[in-house]
C-alpha cells in the first residue's frame, strides 16, 4: 500500500445565552476507519479560544488554557483488538502500528455551575491530528 497522509480535525464553537447559570462539560469526537495499513501518528494539537465568565459576579472564573485532547488508535494484533492512546500536544512521530483499524480523535473541556451568577459563555475548542497509513 502506498503511503497516504491523512488529517482529522474537529472544532466546537459553543455560545450560551446570558440567562444560563449552568453549562455541561464539552465533549466531541471525530473518527475515521482505516485500511488495515501501518499507521504512524505524526502530530496532535489542541487549541482553545474564549471561555467562561460570571455575569454580575465579583469573582472571575478561571480554568486551564487548553482543553484535553487525545487520539485513540485501534489496531489488530493476532486477531485481537488493541488500542493505543496519544495525548496532545505531540509533534513527533509515534512508533508504527500495523493493521490499523480506526482512529478516534476526542476533545473535552470543563462544565461549570454558578450558584451566584449567570454565565457568559463563548468558547471555541479545536483539535487536529495528522497521521500516515502505509
Amino acid at each position, binding site marked *: 500500500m502506498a503511503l497516504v497522509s*491523512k*488529517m*482529522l*480535525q*474537529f*472544532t*466546537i*464553537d*459553543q*455560545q*450560551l*445565552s446570558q*440567562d*444560563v*447559570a*449552568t*453549562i*455541561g462539560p464539552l*465533549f*466531541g*469526537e*471525530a*473518527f*475515521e*476507519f482505516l485500511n488495515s495499513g501501518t499507521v504512524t501518528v505524526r502530530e496532535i494539537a489542541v487549541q482553545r479560544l474564549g471561555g467562561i465568565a460570571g455575569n454580575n459576579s465579583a469573582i472571575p472564573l478561571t480554568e486551564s488554557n487548553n482543553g484535553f485532547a487525545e487520539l485513540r488508535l485501534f489496531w489488530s494484533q493476532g486477531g485481537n483488538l488493541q488500542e493505543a492512546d496519544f495525548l496532545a500536544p505531540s509533534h513527533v512521530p509515534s512508533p508504527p502500528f500495523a493493521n490499523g483499524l480506526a482512529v478516534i480523535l476526542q476533545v473535552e473541556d470543563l462544565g461549570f*455551575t454558578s450558584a451566584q451568577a*449567570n454565565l457568559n459563555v*463563548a468558547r471555541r475548542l*479545536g483539535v*487536529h491530528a495528522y497521521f500516515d497509513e502505509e
Partner: protein
Amino acid sequence: MEIIINGPGELLVCFIDPQGKTMLQERLRVSGSDGVSARRPVNLSVETRKGHVELSPVLKSHGGTQHVTFDGQESNKFTMARCKEIGCSESVLRAVSDGRIEPLPTEPGHVPTRELPVRPQHGAVPPSSR
C-alpha cells in the same frame, strides 16, 4: 442526545426553549477525508436563575455533502417531536419549520473554500473604523 455528523463541513445547531429563544448554540466543523464522521453528545436542558429549562435542537445549516442525525433520527423529524414534547406553541413550531429561529450573535466560522482570499489594499481603512 447525540449529534452524528457524516462527512466534512460545518453545521450550526441552535437549542431553543419552549418560547423559541436560542439558549445554546454550537457550530461544529469537521475536516478530513470524505469518510470522516463525528459525534457530539449534548444535554437537552439547561439551568437558569429561574429554574430548569428543556431544550430542542434545531439544525440551522450544514455542509452540502454532510448528513446529520439527532439520536439516530433525521434532524427535522427529531426536532419537531422534541419541540412538541417540551411544549412549544404552534407559532414556534411554524418558526422552526420555516427556518426563522434566531441564532445568537456570533462570528461565522471559517470553512475551507476554493477561492483565494481578497487582501485589503495597503493603506485602506478597515470598515469597522469608518
